[in-house]
């Protein structure tokens, strides 16, 4: 019986592709589904694009392919990646250049049509309010500060690109799991209204889209994380999928990490809202009917996905300029490390007030005490800490204030409390972006989808 093996590529912009080599060389995969984008990534890529209009794509797609393509091509392994980011054509050109330099051949399909920034006003006057999905707020509040707006496309254009003979499918913003569902739908010829199979593909794509998190990485727990073997050589997950959508979830032989009932279900619920209605462009998944069975030896069987009809709308994620962040940091050694951080924060607040700076929010955290646990930090040893770092951040509309804020801190080294460390320069202002999720009637976006096939 036919089965298709899809392996995880990257799980975010900046992830390592080192483990993907094992999936290609000894994981028996036919496809690598590589996810370079998160909500936050689009904001990062937008900053790149502001500096250089030719940028705005995930730059790690090129070096990843440069290293892995010779291995993949030899075995007929195809890549589906969303490294196009905000500029798929720019990414395509960069990949084509790299392949040309190496003398490699490939058919690259570029999927575009996800960007709706240039169509916002047209969509709004055509009856799409694009109100904030969670708050219902009117887009007018942020319209003139909007920097990008992209719809999450589904798996159909990816499957279509593969049907046209693509070896590499390069996209912009598509639903992460579409990178896996596309190849599965193409290989098995699944009907696009076969909701249970769509749901199965979505489930597996969701389990693969965060690379090492699907195979024992970031295994959230006390103690259990340390039992995951050989993190240094952690293998990324692989789904071996049958025509009915059921799958064996595993990882390449001889790699570290762990695929078990526990590691798989942690990833299943990751960044999911209502698990009985997990929305994607292609189907709405109910996770409540899934059967996850641990077969041992890093193999888990996944079956029973249940799907409902796809939504009539696509989700847009837009980003808008939302002020500037100023950051200051200073560390102190025992004695009274925490008290000295607290005093420094008080001094800085006084200076900010005396300067009359317009500051919208101030955030004070104590690294080594509560910067990650917040109000749930245990105060028992607060006053006996060996060392503690003050991290203070502000939000302001004025970039100059954000820049000046960091410069308040070095002075404390000679004029503030004693036993200072960490005076390692001043952090410049960082641009803050607000994320604006909205819904749009899908046909208004989908009519603009283009698939361009190019042989390089």
């Amino acid at each position: 019986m036919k089965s298709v093996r899809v392996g995880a590529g990257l799980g975010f912009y900046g992830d390592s592709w080192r483990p993907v080599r094992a999936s290609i060389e000894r994981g028996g995969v036919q496809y690598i589904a590589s996810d370079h984008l998160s909500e936050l990534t689009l904001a990062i890529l937008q900053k790149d694009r502001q500096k250089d209009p030719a940028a705005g794509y995930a730059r790690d797609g090129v070096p990843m392919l440069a290293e892995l393509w010779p291995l993949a091509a030899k075995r007929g392994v195809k890549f589906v990646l969303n490294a196009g980011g905000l500029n798929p054509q720019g990414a395509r050109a960069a990949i084509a250049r790299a392949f040309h330099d190496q003398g490699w051949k490939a058919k690259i399909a570029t999927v575009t049509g996800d960007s709706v920034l240039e169509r916002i006003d047209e969509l709004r006057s055509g009856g799409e309010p694009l109100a904030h999905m969670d708050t219902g707020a009117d887009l007018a509040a942020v319209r003139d500060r909007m920097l990008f707006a992209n719809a999450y496309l589904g798996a159909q254009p990816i499957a279509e690109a593969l049907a046209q003979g693509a070896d590499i499918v390069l996209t912009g913003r598509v639903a992460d799991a579409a990178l896996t569902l596309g190849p599965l739908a193409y290989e098995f010829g699944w009907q696009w209204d076969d909701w249970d199979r769509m749901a199965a593909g979505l489930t597996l794509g969701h389990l693969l889209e965060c690379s090492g998190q699907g195979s024992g990485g970031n295994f959230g727990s006390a103690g259990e994380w340390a039992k995951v073997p050989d993190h240094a050589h952690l293998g990324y997950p692989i789904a071996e999928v049958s025509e009915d959508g059921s799958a064996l979830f595993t990882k390449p032989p001889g790699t570290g990490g762990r695929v078990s009932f526990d590691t798989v279900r942690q990833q299943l619920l990751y960044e999911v809202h209502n698990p009985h209605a997990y929305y994607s462009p292609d189907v709405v998944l109910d996770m409540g009917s899934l059967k996850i069975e641990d077969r041992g030896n890093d193999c888990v069987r996944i079956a029973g996905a249940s799907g409902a009809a796809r939504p009539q709308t696509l989700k847009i994620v837009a980003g808008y300029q939302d002020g500037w962040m100023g950051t200051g940091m200073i560390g102190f050694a025992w004695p009274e490390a925490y008290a000295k951080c607290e005093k420094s924060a008080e001094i800085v607040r006084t200076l900010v007030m005396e300067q009359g700076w317009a500051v919208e929010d101030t955030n004070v955290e104590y690294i080594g005490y509560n910067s990650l646990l917040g109000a749930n930090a245990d105060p028992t040893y607060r006053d006996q800490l060996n060392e503690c770092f003050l991290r203070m951040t502000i939000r302001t509309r004025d970039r100059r204030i954000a820049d000046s804020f960091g410069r308040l801190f070095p002075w404390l080294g000679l004029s503030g409390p004693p036993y200072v460390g960490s005076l390692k320069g001043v952090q410049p202002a960082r641009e803050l972006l607000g994320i604006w999720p909205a819904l749009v009637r899908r046909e208004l976006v989908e009519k603009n989808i283009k698939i361009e096939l190019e042989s390089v």
Partner: protein
Amino acid sequence: MRVPLWKIAHARSGDKADRADIGLFAFDAGTYAVLKREVTRERLAAHFAGFNAGPVELWPLDNILALKIVLNGALQGGAARSLRMDNLGKCVAAQLLRMEIEAPEDLPRLKAN
């Protein structure tokens, strides 16, 4: 007896716009029944009061012995505008594991450790 969740469960958290979301997982069916009874929306709201978050949502998933928890409005508007060190909410699960619940002493996980 009072038991912190870290002794009997595991958890992972992440972000989506201004929501922090957490999966909380029991190691066994007996513990799952206790989690389902004791980890309520009201208790979660109290445990995360420091976030000044909006409403808490909660779904039990009997098929994978898990609770899905969503803290609305918990991330200062979202990762790209948050001033926090943990702007992505990755450590919200660790915060949850510090929550204490009432649990019987003979839970398998407590006996094993």
